[in-house]
């Protein structure tokens, strides 16, 4: 078994600035060693530990789908020491990636179901990976109706703007993009994500709900979901925790006896209700 602490070397191929505030960037990375690309087979919802050698690591959700070829993408917010350094990096720089880590979304049980995907802010990244996977020609017919509700504070804060536009033109998914308050030139929804979810009111029948967002958004979305009839066992959340090893050894990311890095980051609401409220 290979050393789980040793990162794969990856090269920054492309950097996309995602938002007006310029503190969210998507890094598209290629594996320096070809067999690492093959070994890095991930499932949407998984994350990886991104290394800036000599500065540190940070756990970031994988923003690309396994169907996106050999490259892998991460959308990183400039928050702390490592992400600061990452934001200073230029194309061509070599970083490290350890992963894929975590459990990812439970695709097996999601197949043949309708999917309701609700995200907010920059937590949308792994949801984007999921949507790209589901929409791919090889998989689209495996899943039922796909409804997406995604919101940000302002239009400038929305991630993956080109893709969001492209989704509007598709008839195999129903995408509802919203911003908090009206803005010039914006013709989409206006309102907080929970409110828009309530308005769209997708049916819970044969559906799996996926929620990922800042704590405040999640807090107000869950009651709406419950009212719409989504069962806790069919509601998936992706959690964040301070992490270091990412492989369930260093002991810090636990909620009760579950480690967010190995037993998660995806949990059903039912699973979380059985755990201590310490996250």
């Amino acid at each position, binding site marked *: 078994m290979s050393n*789980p*602490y040793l990162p794969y070397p990856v090269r920054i191929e492309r950097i996309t600035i995602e938002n007006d505030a310029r503190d969210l960037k998507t890094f598209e990375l290629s594996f320096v060693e070809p067999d690492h690309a093959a070994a890095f087979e991930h499932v949407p919802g998984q994350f990886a530990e991104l290394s800036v050698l*000599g500065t*540190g690591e940070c756990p970031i959700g994988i923003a690309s789908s396994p169907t996106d070829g050999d490259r892998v993408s991460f959308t990183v917010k400039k*928050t702390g020491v490592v*992400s600061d350094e990452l934001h200073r990096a230029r194309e061509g720089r070599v970083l490290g990636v350890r992963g894929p880590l975590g459990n990812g979304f439970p695709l097996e049980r999601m197949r043949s179901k309708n999917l309701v995907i609700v995200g907010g802010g920059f937590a949308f990244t792994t949801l984007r990976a999921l949507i790209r996977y589901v929409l791919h020609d090889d998989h689209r017919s495996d899943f039922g109706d796909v409804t997406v509700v995604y919101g940000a504070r302002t239009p400038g804060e929305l991630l993956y703007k080109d893709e969001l536009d492209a989704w509007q033109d598709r008839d195999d998914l129903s995408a509802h993009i919203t911003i908090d308050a009206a803005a010039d030139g914006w013709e989409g929804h206006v309102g907080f994500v929970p409110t828009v979810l309530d308005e769209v009111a997708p049916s819970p029948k044969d559906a799996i709900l996926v929620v990922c967002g800042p*704590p405040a958004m999640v807090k107000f979305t869950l009651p709406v979901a419950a009212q719409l009839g989504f069962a806790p066992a069919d509601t998936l959340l992706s959690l964040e925790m301070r992490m270091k090893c990412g492989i369930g050894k260093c*002991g810090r990311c636990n909620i009760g006896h579950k480690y967010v890095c*190995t037993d998660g980051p995806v949990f059903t609401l039912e699973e979380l209700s059985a755990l201590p409220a310490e996250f």
Partner: protein
Amino acid sequence: MTEKKEGTKPETPMDARIVSKEDLIAALTALAQDHTVIAPVDDRTGAVFAPTQDAAAVRLEYRNTSLSPKAAVFPQIETLLAFQDGVATETLPEPPETVLFGARPCDARALAMLDRVFQRDGIDDPYVAARRDRLTVIALACDEPGPACFCTSVGGAPDDHTGADVLATDLGEALLMRPVTERGEALLAALDGARPAEAGEIEAAQERSAAAAEKIGRVPVPSEPARLLEAFDSEIWAEIAAGCLGCGACTYACPTCHCFDLTDEHKRGTGRRVRSWDTCALPLFTLHASGHNPRPSTDARLRQRVLHKFAYGPETIDEMLCVGCGRCVSVCPSGIDLRRILARLDGCIAGGGPG
């Protein structure tokens, strides 16, 4: 679930050996030629495990050390990766053959627990494994408990051999040494001066251990660890943690505490990634970059420590992550006593829910 461990079953007389103390010293000194021998030696805090060249410095009469010997497989500081010009290489340890002599049964059992933490769920830690593979553990049974010992309440015993390759018992003039594993047998077979033990000597060793077990105070430990979670929201934690300073002394002294941090260091083109012991006692342990902290108070952090040992351990490694060595009790500057905490929790749960 933890099974209560009885004293070790008697080995057949031909397996157990008797080694005089002089022969033992000679043997350890000889081993030190081509092995690293880690043994308890004098220290201002009583005794400490240290690599020893001169076996005459080894202390058999100590109760237990203030720090556990877990550093033999899980050192406090370990370089995992070396960085040079943007390339990371693993720096796996290549330890010499090592003999850990004189670890108490609680500490040997803790090593076995650490094995299960670091090699589980299909993910193996190669650094810990490299050290463990080259380690022979000669545990030393206890004939007198320390002031804070409670191993028998958590499934241990003064002569438990879990995690050991050889279990030694001090009979006064000589040691009874029983092989537990093939590695232990190989070591004993090569030991000059070792002779087969007689049945009477084996019995004498068992009697000593049984007598020691009698003296160890009993502590109520929940038989159903999940019940501890009933007390999760109880106000009892504020009471228990009132004096807790939130330092890391208990976690660093503890033989089963395994939490660690990963830090990068760099200086102009070179650098390293270092693993270091970390502690759930500090707020920084779980602090998010956003400023949110799932465990914002000492109450919550002390609760985590206790539940990690007694409620989560049984879920992750099928065993309570506590061997009853009592170091946390001895070392705590505020006099917080895990035995009292367990008794309080026992009362809290038995009383029918959070109190």
